[in-house]
């Protein structure tokens, strides 16, 4: 069993953008994240994680009523199992329960479940494909963003890993091709594939339409890809992620009681860089996010803008 114990203290953290934000004191002992890992039988592993946060703020609330005596309303619990019946074949599944203020109330969610087939595996090269619900390769941290001990900070920087768009960015159903080439000049890894994002929930509607409307969002086939270069000993890691996320809005009521049958096209590009030393790492990420809305028929809803962070 692997268990790790760590307590963190931070004087400041950035709040999600939809919350009012003034200088605040955020206390998050990061209440220890015992990780659990064991092999049940040969090739079958079970892993889990748990983290409990405590937030104490002034002048704003973050994940519950954090102003008055602090809030414990931030919990992440996950369990996953993987089975490799053959060296080139793996099945993996993970369930997650997450409490985060009003955005998540701890109901179990199917996080990922996939079949991974490696067609080519040598010491220098790997080529394969994943089918099912896959984690989106997005920046350096999205792959494991809910696992506290894989994060460099209490909350990931909201400019890139925004809580509001979490359900759109976290995982989806599709096919992911991957290839990796290692050489004396460094390592190149590419993941690329067509996916359907998880848009059938209130949080995604809030993220894309800024409100909960009578109709529903419908996902269309979208694409995500990440190319990563690292130096041979991985001291330096550089990545670029590109996404083309298409969503339709199907109104339930006739205009003007509902929005028009609009389309949302979101095409973010993220550049990531990380330097690893023995006892510290330095990471920087930059995102450019063009968003285009059309067909909603409501003033202010049809726009074509570019955000940066």
């Amino acid at each position, binding site marked *: *069993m*692997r268990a790790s114990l760590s307590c963190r203290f931070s004087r400041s953290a950035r709040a999600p953008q939809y919350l009012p934000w003034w200088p605040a004191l955020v206390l998050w002992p990061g209440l220890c994240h015992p990780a659990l*890992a*064991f*092999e049940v039988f*040969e*090739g079958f*592993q079970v*892993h889990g*994680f748990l983290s409990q946060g405590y937030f104490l703020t002034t002048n704003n609330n973050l994940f519950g009523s954090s102003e008055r005596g602090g809030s414990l309303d931030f919990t992440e619990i*996950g369990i*996953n199992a*993987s089975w*490799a019946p*053959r*060296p*080139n074949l*793996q099945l*993996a*599944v*993970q369930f997650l329960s997450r409490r985060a203020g009003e955005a998540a109330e701890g109901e179990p969610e199917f996080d*990922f*479940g*996939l079949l*991974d087939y*490696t067609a080519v*595996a*040598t*010491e*220098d090269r*790997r080529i394969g494909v*994943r089918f099912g619900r*896959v*984690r989106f390769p997005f920046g350096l941290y999205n*792959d*494991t963003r809910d*696992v506290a*001990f*894989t994060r460099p900070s209490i909350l990931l920087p909201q400019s890139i890993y925004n809580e509001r768009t979490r359900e759109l960015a976290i995982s989806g159903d599709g096919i992911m091709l991957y290839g*990796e080439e*290692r050489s004396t000049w460094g390592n190149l890894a590419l993941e690329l594939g067509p996916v359907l994002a998880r848009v059938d929930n209130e949080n995604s509607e809030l993220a894309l339409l800024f409100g909960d409307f009578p109709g529903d969002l419908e996902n269309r086939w979208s694409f995500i890809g990440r190319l990563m270069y690292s130096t*041979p*000993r*991985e001291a330096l890691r550089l990545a670029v992620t590109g996404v083309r996320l298409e969503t339709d809005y199907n109104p339930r009521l006739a205009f003007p009681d509902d929005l028009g049958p609009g389309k949302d096209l979101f095409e973010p590009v993220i550049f990531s860089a990380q330097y*690893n*030393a*023995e006892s510290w790492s330095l990471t920087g990420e930059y995102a450019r996010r063009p968003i285009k809305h059309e067909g909603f028929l409501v003033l202010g809803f049809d726009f074509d803008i570019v955000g940066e962070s």
Partner: protein
Amino acid sequence: MVVAVNPATPVGEAIARNTLSAIFGMRLCAWEDGTPIRVFVLPDNHAVHGMFCKQILGVFPHQYRAAWDRLVYSGTGQAPLEVASEEEMHARLAGTRGEARVVVGSEEEMRARVAGTSGAIGYLSRKMIDESVTFLPVQ
């Protein structure tokens, strides 16, 4: 510091550094004859683990831990078998928790697991060499 494999493992006289790197990065999962590779490691804070990562593979232990966590928690791979964790669990199940503390993370345990597991690979300090495992020089 030497690399140790199960005596029945179909490997040559030596092992290339990039092959080792792929095996301990959990990217190469089978030996040339198709036998699954079973990777054993000591705990992250074990001195021998630190030396193996830095001197043989040229990578810091935290980088390997981060890479294994990414594989496990994104469903794209598996973690190596940590000698301490397995032994501690078995001992706990058997109700011999006191004894577990004695053997947690020991090189004796690493040697025994590599010797007793088909396709196994691990690492040991030179003083641990005996005939139960095959030691491979790194090219």
